[in-house]
């Protein structure tokens, strides 16, 4: 993705090489905003999607992903130079910093929390997986483990060849082999992991600036609430501005056409709305038969259109291989779509009417492209959008994972608040967290009171022999009455199961299924094939 300066172009262009794996999921939107800031400041900026991630070609099992990543960096630098930038700096974040060092494609570098070594980085990823996997259950007996020598972390895989390539990266050795001229090193707080690198750079007479990678957790941890540290942005902008001179750019080359992938093609898709442009990817077979249904993929919270664990990209390509087109896109404020800088500051934003408006606009655009029928896919807030669209437009089939709310009402708000502390208010650990001040006690009390009042009202209605009002049940019935084949798939133990039980109509149930042993965003690798089979319509259970 290129970010061109609107005016006052400077001679330094920046290639942003984001983090890898799960960290990419969270950091995507904040890095987009940093790229916007760099462009506004006069620096032509290009962001890379790594091979095997996001919308790029390749699968995480491809053995040559690391080589292709380095090649992508070289092509990115070449693009910026071809646009007329006399100087190029590569900004590498975490694993992206390792690849930037390995590529040695530019003499100016911004290294944002670079790991001390490739081996150290993968050790972190293994540890993260070990800690996070406690949220998973046991894999089924027929689940295939990753190949020996792989590293699984947060829903992503580093295959054995990639592991070997990353483990071989020693930042100190790399800068000695290819000395950069000018470097900004932003070290992770409370560590000295960049000490040896900075010392080596000084010994090489590089122009070295150092700073602190404040707010790294906010950047990397949670895609629903990730944010860019103002301090880091200021450090990067200041460093880029130093010594920069005016420059003139050449016109951009013609926009790339389609990405061709073994009988399917993908091309950028965008839609102008009242909030700006919605960005997405149209994925279609080379020859689509007329009358086949199209699929529309909705964001899961703040996760961009590639989907949780890149599942939407993979499912879209599986659908196209079966002759069925799809669009995966970002609602406003998410991924590459226009909107505010800090996505989803709270649950209200995630379930806002604006998102429904965007989803309906995308649906209408798909029909305008000639889709005879439309299927929808979503997870969490994406499931909310799926139900809302299916209630208002003809939807052939909806496959919705872990929907915590289908109507954003007082009950959903109350569930949203109480779900932050778990299903049981009588879990002592949850109360300690409340008492520790992590949760807004007043908002929680209001939510609990509302939830109690709703349940009490329902109880009174039943005592009177009246049907308790249930707009969620009515909505689901409405979707089924419109003829939608509705599949609600929940992770084992997910709060969405309780929500569905509370609103099910025993006379008129959608298809319900439980995925055992997985968390809310379905991170275990062994479950991904099941998700794709659900979406393509070929589940085994």
């Amino acid at each position, binding site marked *: 993705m290129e970010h061109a300066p609107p005016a006052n172009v400077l001679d330094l262009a920046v290639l942003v090489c984001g983090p890898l794996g799960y960290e990419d999921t969270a950091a995507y939107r904040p890095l987009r905003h940093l790229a916007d800031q760099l462009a506004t400041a006069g620096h032509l900026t290009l962001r890379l999607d790594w091979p095997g991630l996001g919308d790029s070609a390749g699968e995480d099992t491809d053995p040559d992903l690391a080589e292709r990543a380095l090649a992508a960096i070289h092509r990115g630098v070449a693009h910026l130079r071809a646009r007329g930038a006399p100087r190029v700096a590569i900004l590498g974040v975490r694993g992206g910093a390792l690849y930037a060092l390995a590529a040695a494609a530019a003499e100016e570098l911004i290294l944002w929390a670079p790991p001390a070594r490739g081996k150290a980085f993968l050790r972190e990823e293994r*540890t993260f997986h070990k*800690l996070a996997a406690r949220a998973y259950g046991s894999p089924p007996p027929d689940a295939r483990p990753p190949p020996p020598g792989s590293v699984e972390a947060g829903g992503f895989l580093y295959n054995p060849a990639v592991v070997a390539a990353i483990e071989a990266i020693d930042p100190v050795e790399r800068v000695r082999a290819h000395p950069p001229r000018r470097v900004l090193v932003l070290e992770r707080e409370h560590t000295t992991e960049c000490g040896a690198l900075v010392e080596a750079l000084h010994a090489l007479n590089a122009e070295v600036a150092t700073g602190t990678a404040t707010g790294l957790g906010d950047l990397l941890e949670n895609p629903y609430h990730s944010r860019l540290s103002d301090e880091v942005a200021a450090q990067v902008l200041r460093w880029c501005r130093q010594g920069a001179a005016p420059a003139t750019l050449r016109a951009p080359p013609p926009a790339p056409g389609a990405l061709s992938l073994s009988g399917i093609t993908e091309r950028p898709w965008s839609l102008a709305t009242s909030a700006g442009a919605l960005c997405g990817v149209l994925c279609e077979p080379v020859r689509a038969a007329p009358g086949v249904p199209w699929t529309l993929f909705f964001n899961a919270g703040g996760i961009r259109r590639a989907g949780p664990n890149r599942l939407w990209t993979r499912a879209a390509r599986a659908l196209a291989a079966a002759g069925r087109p799809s669009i995966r896109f970002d609602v406003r404020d998410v991924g590459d779509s226009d909107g505010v800088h800090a996505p989803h500051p709270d649950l209200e934003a995630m379930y806002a009417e604006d998102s429904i408006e965007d989803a309906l606009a995308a649906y209408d655009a798909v029909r305008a492209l000639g889709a005879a029928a439309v299927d929808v896919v979503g997870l969490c807030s994406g499931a909310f959008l799926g139900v809302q669209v299916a209630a208002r437009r003809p939807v052939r089939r909806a496959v919705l994972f872990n929907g915590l709310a289908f109507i954003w009402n007082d009950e959903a708000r109350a569930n949203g608040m109480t779900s932050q502390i778990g299903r049981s208010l009588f879990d002592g650990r949850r109360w300690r967290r409340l008492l520790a001040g992590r949760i807004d006690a007043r908002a929680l009390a209001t939510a609990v009171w509302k939830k109690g009042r709703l349940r009490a009202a329902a109880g009174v209605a039943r005592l009177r022999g009246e049907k308790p009002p249930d707009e969620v049940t009515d909505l689901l019935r409405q979707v089924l009455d419109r003829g939608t084949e509705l599949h609600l798939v929940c992770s084992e133990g997910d709060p969405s199961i309780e929500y569905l039980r509370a609103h099910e109509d025993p006379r008129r149930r959608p298809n319900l299924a439980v995925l055992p042993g997985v968390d809310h965003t379905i991170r275990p690798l062994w479950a991904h094939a099941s998700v794709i089979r659900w979406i393509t319509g070929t589940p085994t259970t």
Partner: protein
Amino acid sequence: MLTDQVRDIVLKTCRLSNPEQITASSDLYAAGLSSLTTVHLMLALEDAFGVEFPDRVLGRKTFESVQAIADVIAELQEQS
């Protein structure tokens, strides 16, 4: 004291609410410690104490409280 040093690093590395209420036995995960933050905490502890957490102790139990962390660090320091 080791637990005080560990507590200091925990509070600097991890954004936990009401840090003044974190004691040696406080449940750090209940106080907001996440899997990813635990990894960052691990690195900060290794840096501060000159130890490396072996695979066998890399689990939630090790990081569930300041005291649990201090106990593991003490064991690692004894072994080195």
